[in-house]
């Protein structure tokens, strides 16, 4: 058996995903700022003909930031941290490494196919599952490859017990696999129609209310298994590593892991409150959403308490800032979600801008902040260089935090205003506002949101520049730092 110190980790794959994280982040967030601006200034819909309308670009934005930026960030963190907690390098198995290259290549092909097909309007029209069946099959292959690599590494491991991060990576793999397969069950029309029509077209296996149930079982749990589970995997590795502190409580991590696994799936019904799905399912969705606060806050509190006695690091290290604020946003978001899932609140909140507001305090404040921190921490080890600029990282933190705050506060106001106006009646019981009144009133909030998004995008560019400079011009490090990432 090799000793721990002698092990040289192989970072080739990590580097690849680092660059796709940056590229998809810039593309996805730029589209995001554009569509946010379109709602405030509709003339911006006509920049690229039929390909530039809000409706065509909106799924492109969500898909590029989810499947491009976030998934790249998750894979970069996985390929960096999983070998380290298993004490095995990917380079030790030439086969697994080749499979990892293959996975990356297919991932690029799928991403390109996704962008092109969505611009053309080729879509299965289910939110966050828009891709048509040929791309779905490709994604299944990519996912299975990831599973093979993950369990291959686990099979080769020198550290017998699986670290907490790996629990979450395994759950991410299994959860997404199950949900994705069932939600994307569709019948390609070309095989039944005597060979006529578009070859890529399909119809869903489920109709109407059933389709909605399966879709939101997926839609909600895509949030669970892409935006939550693997991000918790990231924070459980990177926060203790960067701070040099041991995880606060093993029992709390156990409780929150198994609690999250059990409860999360039930909560999908809260997307369908007051719809045509049976009442008991709606109630289950509501109740379990509230229960979900426990395991969510369990992880977040576990992370915050990990910093116990070391809070001075918060002022000294911008990476700790990113991660601590990320846990805090995770707490905010996982409290806000259950509030929206209460039936009476949902009656006002559903269909309004409060929902995108909620999503974005989670993804901008929690998911992306964790990915930035993980990428920067890994960069110092992968490139064996100092982080290029600490002050740039600090500036990025404050600019993006301002952006997130502008984003969610404006959307809270917009959503509640709209929800209340839709139901407002005069003294005779007649509706007080026509629909367009409830649109016009939102203009200032849409403008503020676009500004918030723009600030966040500026921060994204700062991150990209800083990472690039770290890789190429950061001061060389003699030996790998143990905890805190050195920065200039």
């Amino acid at each position: 058996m090799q000793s721990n110190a002698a092990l040289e980790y192989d970072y080739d794959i990590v580097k690849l995903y680092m660059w796709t994280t940056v590229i998809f982040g810039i593309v996805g967030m730029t589209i995001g700022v554009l569509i946010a601006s379109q709602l405030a200034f509709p003339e911006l819909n006509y920049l690229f003909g039929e390909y530039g309308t809000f409706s065509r670009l909106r799924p492109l934005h969500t898909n590029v930031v989810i499947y491009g930026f976030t998934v790249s960030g998750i894979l970069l963190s996985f390929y960096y941290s999983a070998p380290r907690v298993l004490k095995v390098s990917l380079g030790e198995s030439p086969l697994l490494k080749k499979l990892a290259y293959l996975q990356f290549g297919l991932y690029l092909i799928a991403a390109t196919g996704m962008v092109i097909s969505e611009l053309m309007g080729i879509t299965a029209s289910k939110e966050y599952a828009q891709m048509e069946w040929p791309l779905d099959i490709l994604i299944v292959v990519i996912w299975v490859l990831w599973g093979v690599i993950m369990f291959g590494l686990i099979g080769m491991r020198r550290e017998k017990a699986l670290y907490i991060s790996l629990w979450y990576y395994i759950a991410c793999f299994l959860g997404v696999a199950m949900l994705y397969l069932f939600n994307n069950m569709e019948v390609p029309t070309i095989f039944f129609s005597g060979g006529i029509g578009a070859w890529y077209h399909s119809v869903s296996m489920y109709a109407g209310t059933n389709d909605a149930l399966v879709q939101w079982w997926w839609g909600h749990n895509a949030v669970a298994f892409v935006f939550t589970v693997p991000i918790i995997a990231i924070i459980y590795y990177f926060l203790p590593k960067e701070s040099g502190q041991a995880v606060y409580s093993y029992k709390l991590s156990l409780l929150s892991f198994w609690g999250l696994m059990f409860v999360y799936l039930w909560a999908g019904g809260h997307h369908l409150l007051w719809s045509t799905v049976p009442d008991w399912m709606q109630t289950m969705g509501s109740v379990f959403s509230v229960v979900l606060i426990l395991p969510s806050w369990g992880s977040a509190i576990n992370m915050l308490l990990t910093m116990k006695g070391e809070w001075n690091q918060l002022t000294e290290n911008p990476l700790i800032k990113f991660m601590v604020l990320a846990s805090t946003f995770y707490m905010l978001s996982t409290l806000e979600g259950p509030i929206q899932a209460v039936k009476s609140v949902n009656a006002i909140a559903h269909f309004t801008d409060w929902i995108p507001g909620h999503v974005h305090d989670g993804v901008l404040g929690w998911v992306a902040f964790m990915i930035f921190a993980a990428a920067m921490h890994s960069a110092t080890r992968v490139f064996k260089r100092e982080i290029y600029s600490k002050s740039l990282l600090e500036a990025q933190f404050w600019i993006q935090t301002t952006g997130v705050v502008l984003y969610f506060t404006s959307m809270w106001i917009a959503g509640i205003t709209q929800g209340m106006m839709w139901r407002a009646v005069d003294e005779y019981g007649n509706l007080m506002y026509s629909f367009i009144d409830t649109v016009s009133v939102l203009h200032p909030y849409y403008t503020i949101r676009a500004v918030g998004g723009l600030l966040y995008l500026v921060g994204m560019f700062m991150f990209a520049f800083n990472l690039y400079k770290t890789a190429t011009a950061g001061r060389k490090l003699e030996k790998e730092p143990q905890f805190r990432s050195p920065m200039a």
Partner: protein
Amino acid sequence: MFHWLEKNPFLFSVGVFIVIAFAGLIEILPNFAEAARPIKGLKPYTVLQLAGKEVYKKDNCIACHSQLIRPFKAETDRYGQYSLSGEYAYDRPFLWGSKRTGPDLHRVGNYRTPDWHANHMWNPKSVVPDSIMPAYKHQFKNIADTETAYAEAVTVKKVFNTPYGPEIAPGKAAYEKYYKSILLPEAMKIAKAMKNKDVEAMVKQGKVPEIVALIAYLEKLK
């Protein structure tokens, strides 16, 4: 307590899978058959309407419009009778949407006319001055993919027993016959009601622009 499990990746994974799969089985399965049943008198979409549904998907109207009227007085006053499960029995996929930047459309066929839609899609501000919806002028030029819509009708008839008559049958010849004898006359009716000379001329030449199919679909939403 669980240390043994963390040293056994296989059992660990099985455990995780059971714990996460559990909820889906209990929540989704029991109601499956009942939710799939259509309400009395519900007709499946015609091929032209299906082609319109494809335009609705392609230009992604669900980004801003829902098709789900909730059982509140404020909603039934604004949009009409609240939505029933059986009304969606032929909707593959469902198109409820999750955001109302614009109004709900589940019963839009009750209170808008084809010429209103035509004007609205050409220039939304001409009918709703403060509208922030983009114009969809390309729908007047692009030809609707009726062949794929026909392929969809054949598929759902075969696979899901959607009640179509003998006019829906596999193959190019069956499609061409349907196109001339059923689809074009239906499109002509919509084109006339749109009161748009250019569109009418196109349909006369045997071409169906996307806007005609889309309006046929919107007219069916009642």
